[in-house]
């Protein structure tokens, strides 16, 4: 997953805990193998290679549901959350200290845009050669949910899945008390911005501080605007609580992409959220018109 992951769970015996943990970790590994952009043999890499053909590629149900989810994100973010924008990372090296050449970014932008692909279940086709899908902002969060589901199905009712800071609660401690979750301060390492109590659901955080380049005193975060190809500027950190890590994670990313409009967008979503802008102002939004996300039968 490329980041520290933790699985904490309560079980009757250590044997049971280890057995369930093995299964949950297996879930995560399977999803990583399928959707990793770093693995040339992953399902995602194969689809990227084939979707550029004239006939496109037929995808399985899980990939189809992920694409449907990606379309929802694209529509709900007015085009800012775009799973085709990952290719821009080829120009951006966040481990270095240099900014990319503007013309390299320009060239890559031609291959970015959800409106440049045709997604008609079950066929996916890229209209521009060289486009790529990237499930960053979805994949890790989905894996956290899947791991939690597996634990629940195996009878575990207390525990937490933490995949690189994307946190999904399996259930409260056996005595019913909530998990205390600390949110890192985006500007003061080692300090907490807030501590939240979570009994169920998920909390994820997105910030400009984890992978970024600082040039001439200006911070360039890893969240790139698909319209310009350049990092968004507006919010330093956003945390969202939701029923699932997937929903919380995509909400964080969209709020970051919305920059100064992020807080307003979070209010329109109605989920509990906490954010800090570039001037250090902290904003907070409690659960909106709906106290808990509606889980409708499908």
């Amino acid at each position: 997953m490329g980041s520290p992951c933790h699985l904490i769970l309560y079980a009757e015996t250590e044997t049971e805990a280890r057995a369930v943990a093995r299964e949950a970790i297996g879930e995560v590994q399977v999803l990583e193998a399928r959707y990793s952009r770093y693995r040339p043999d992953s399902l995602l890499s194969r689809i990227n290679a084939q979707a550029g053909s004239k006939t496109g590629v037929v995808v399985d149900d899980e990939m189809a549901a992920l694409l449907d989810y990606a379309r929802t994100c694209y529509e709900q973010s007015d085009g800012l959350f775009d799973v085709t924008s990952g290719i821009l990372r080829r120009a951006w090296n966040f481990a270095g200290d240099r900014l990319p050449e503007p013309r390299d970014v320009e060239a890559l932008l031609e291959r970015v845009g959800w409106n440049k692909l045709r997604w008609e279940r079950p066929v996916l086709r890229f209209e521009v050669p060289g486009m790529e899908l990237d499930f960053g902002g979805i994949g890790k969060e989905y894996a956290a949910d899947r791991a939690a589901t597996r634990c629940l199905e195996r009878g575990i009712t207390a525990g937490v899945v933490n995949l690189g800071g994307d946190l999904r609660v399996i259930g409260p401690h056996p005595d019913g008390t909530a998990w205390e979750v600390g949110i890192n301060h985006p500007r003061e390492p080692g300090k907490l911005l807030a501590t939240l109590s979570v009994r169920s659901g998920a909390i994820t955080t997105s910030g400009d501080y984890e992978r970024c380049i600082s040039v001439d005193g200006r911070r360039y975060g890893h969240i790139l605007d698909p319209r310009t190809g350049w990092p968004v500027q507006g919010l330093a950190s956003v945390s969202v609580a939701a029923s699932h890590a997937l929903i919380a994670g995509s909400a964080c990313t969209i709020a970051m992409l919305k920059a100064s409009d992020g807080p307003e967008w979070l209010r329109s979503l109605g989920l509990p959220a906490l954010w800090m802008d570039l001037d250090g102002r902290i904003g907070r939004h409690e659960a909106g018109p709906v106290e808990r996300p509606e889980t409708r039968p499908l």
Partner: protein
Amino acid sequence: MAATDRLAAFTAAALALPGMVAAQGLDLSPEAPAIDSGYSNYQESNGRMSVQAFQNDASLRLGEDVNFRVNSTLDFIGGGSNPMNLSQIGGASPTFYWGRNNNYGRKYGELELSQATQGPQRGRQGGIHDQRLAIDGALSVALDDLTLGVAGGNSTEWDYISNFFNLDARWDINRKATTLAAGFGYASDTVWADGGNQGRIHQQYTDGTVIGGDKNTYQGLLGLTQVLDKNSLLQVNLTVANSSGFLSDPYKSAWVNDVPAVRSPSRRSASARAAPDMSTHSGASGGSPEPSPSPVPAPDQPAEVPATPVNTFCRQNVPFSFQVNLCADTRPGSRIQSAVLLRYVRNIPELDAAALHLDYRFYSDDWNVDSHTFEAGWLQPLPYETLLTFRLRYYTQRSAYFYQTVYDHPTADGLYSSDYRLASFGAVGGGLQVNKTFFGMLQIGGGVDLYQRTQGMGFMGGTGSHVDNFSFALYSVNLNLKF
């Protein structure tokens, strides 16, 4: 856009992904350790039969993945009045109720499904009496996604012994959204007609052979359960059974009109026939049967009528030997049965986790008996950990090809049965059950089931008799302890 709409869009898209919600509410998990006790009281209309049944089940988990279950059932059967009484035999179609067996003690939903495969009950003057003790055990082992089970048991009555075993396998695939099941069963049964001394004396046909015999049944099952979404599932089960051996009812007889005259076995055939007078016969066959109308002897052989009339075209049960028109229930020596069950279960979280069950079952066998069963159930949780269950059911079946209410002539194939369970009929049933849970582990419940069988209610065609119409009420209480 309203906040709820935006969030609903995300939520709906997220929940469409596989593995986002645990399969809860749909009980796919192995059984938890538990003890079940039940008492049922079965009352048939006109006081024809009453049954009291005590049932005890215990299940226990051995280690992590091994489950063991033991069931025992003790039944007492009594009849308030002679089952062969005038009210049932009146009219032109005499039907005999000796040893009727309604597969008592089970839910009415299974009533006809195993018809003519259960042990008959002894009919006696003054009532029916029998007892049954059944014990069976089952062991299941869970290996990851595969559950293997083996079960065996014995059921003993005064006129019936059954030994059986089953093997079954269940395989969860597709993240437990799909379950495949396969099973194989074998039963070896012995049936006879209780002639007294709690079944130790066996009745004989008039030709001296013992009534009854052995029966072997092989049964196979294939099942598919598919979780459709987090609140509903669909189940398809296919069952095939092949039985051979003595498949008749050792107590039952059929009435045949127009029979050849009875004569001494050593003499030549007589041309005269017994002329059955139905009204006379019906009246005479009440609680104290009288000899049949004497055969009309040929004028030249006045003194040759045997003391015991013997039919040349069918076998007769000893208790009926006085009746030249009665043939012992005689069915084919093999039977191939198949059935398909379709089941839809839907949980309704909006109504306090209520659940709807819809079942359809089609049954067909090579005796030409086809049937349809439609059943609907509603489970409604109420406050104070109370569960209300309501069920409604309709059943219709076509008669077996050899079934006749009354036979006009002896049959060419020698098959005779007027067993009401092989007739054409329809039935409706319904029931209500209330269960309440105490301390999260003790459940006490009670219920009533009503059943009405009516000749004209079926739509499958064939023959049958309104005389066989009956109804019953089943009252039950149960106690369940889960650890």
